[in-house]
């Protein structure tokens, strides 16, 4: 019972975060929204009793993907500002 309600709430919040990540103007907000989606997906993997998949999702989605996206965004902004001058 509690697992069903928790899965429904997490799925609704995850869907709203995905729609927000598509509709937003700033790329940084979309990166943070992808972090939230990774957190909720990790809890949903745990609810269907797959702890190893949840651990991998936590490591890749929250740690590695955010840092790599921010690094790429920083380099894109630097490249664009030097080409404009």
């Amino acid at each position: 019972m509690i697992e069903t309600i928790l899965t429904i709430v997490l799925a609704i919040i995850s869907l709203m975060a995905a729609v927000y990540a598509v509709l937003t103007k700033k790329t940084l907000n979309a990166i943070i929204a992808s972090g939230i989606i990774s957190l909720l997906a990790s809890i949903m993997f745990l609810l269907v009793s797959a702890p190893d998949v949840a651990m991998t999702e936590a490591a890749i989605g929250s740690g590695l993907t955010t840092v790599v996206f921010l690094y790429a965004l920083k380099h894109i902004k630097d490249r664009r500002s030097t080409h404009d001058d």
Partner: protein
Amino acid sequence: MDSITAIIFNTAFYVLMAAMALAFVRFIKGPTSADRVVAFDIMTIAGISVIVFISVIAQRVIYLDVAMVYALLSFLGVIAVARYLEGGL
């Protein structure tokens, strides 16, 4: 685990879900990017607590490792966003 304890843990589940929904409303509304990172931090803490409660209800100790990995790596994400806002990274 008897029934009163299970009822109290289920109530804690509902309270944490309400906290997560409130933080997500702040994530949608927040005018600057720092507001969104604060909301993400609160949602991470609530999510770690949800994972710990799931491990109590399911009676499996392996779920606590997921909470530990998440507690360390969400810190890395918030630090990366803070360095990006400051102009470093």
